[in-house]
């Protein structure tokens, strides 16, 4: 199925485009928060497209679900890390909820 290979290639190139966009944003944006915004495109859409490209060519359903799980875990981890970096950059103490602050 040649069209499947072309589809996978197209998806991978799309993911690559988002990675390039995120990297350019990381290098050129003026402050921490806008750079974080650019980086999240890398993790969400860039990795998502590349995982989709790999999914379509996976040998078994287990491999495909492992790839999708990797993407979900990266989403969660990078979202948490972006939050923490942004909070630190703002210089605020994060709301802890326990002391009611």
């Amino acid at each position, binding site marked *: 199925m040649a069209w499947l290979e072309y589809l996978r290639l197209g998806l991978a190139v799309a993911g690559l485009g988002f990675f390039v966009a995120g990297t350019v944003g990381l290098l050129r944006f003026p402050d921490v928060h806008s750079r974080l915004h650019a980086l999240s495109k890398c993790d969400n859409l860039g990795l998502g497209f590349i995982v989709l490209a790999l999914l379509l060519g996976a040998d078994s359903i287990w491999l495909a679900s492992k790839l999708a799980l990797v993407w979900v*875990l990266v989403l*969660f*981890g990078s979202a*948490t890390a972006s*939050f*923490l970096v942004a*909070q*630190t950059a703002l*210089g*605020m*103490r*994060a*709301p*802890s*909820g*326990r*002391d009611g602050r």
Partner: protein
Amino acid sequence: MTWQISALDVLLAASLLLLAWGALGSADLFKGIVLFVVFGLLMAVAWIRLAAPDIALAEAAIGSGVTGALLLAGLARIERNLPVVAEVRPTRGAWLLLGTGALAAVLCWSVLELPDKAAGLTPAVEHHLPQTGAANPVTAVVLNYRGYDTLLEMGVLLIALIGAAVLARPNGARGPDRGPGGNQVLRVFLRSMAPIFVLVTGYLVWVGGHAPGGAFQAGALLAGAGVVAVLAGHRPPSLTDGRSVRIILAAGVLGFLAVGLGALGSGAFLQYPPRWAKHLLLLIEVASTAAIGLTLTMLFAYCADRRAGPPGCQENGS
């Protein structure tokens, strides 16, 4: 030596050299540590290009993950910028460059002179693989063929922890762990990811028998969960907490020793009887995973102890 070198490999090698230069040469320690972590990640990719996925897993988990966390935690306690060093004299610099260049040339020549078709020890390893108790040759080498090395490595880890415990301040926070009181984001992350951490740790231990994985990688993942717990505000375990902490820490060495001494009955020390080898290996791996995870977590807790360190030193971030 015939290798297939692609553009990716050349790019990878060049990036590794550049990152190593940047990590070592930057006066800003934080920048150096970040570059070191990225270096570890690219090193893991290099290991995959060399067809060594077990080492790639260990490099990503321990070399750049846990070590990066330890370095950052230690950085919070010292000055962030190195003092300006005196310039290196030109003659000494020339001698250093000559020596390093000669060493690099010898290494490159010896790699290029490797015979094309040398099989090395692979036939011997694969011939006895069914009797080792593991279907993955790397696990067989680590836990069976070279079991002495791994036993002593677990001992080294334990000694390192004891050394860190001696240097750390006594744990002032007495009393039970009142749960995470710090960052809410980290609390949510920990609460939702903790089951996945434990599940993937168990998976890595189990799959290490027949595919890339193993005790060290699983232990490093468990240590990652421990690091997140410490950062979220949980009180880290200490050596004075009770017997269970000390038993788990020593379980790596003790499990190995117990199995090794038990094998004396059927042969020499650490000569597992082939019929029980698989189960004995699993036992050793489970004990080692728990020990490695707890040891690395406690090492991080000692490094991240805010109350220690010289007074008036700056901390990065909140």
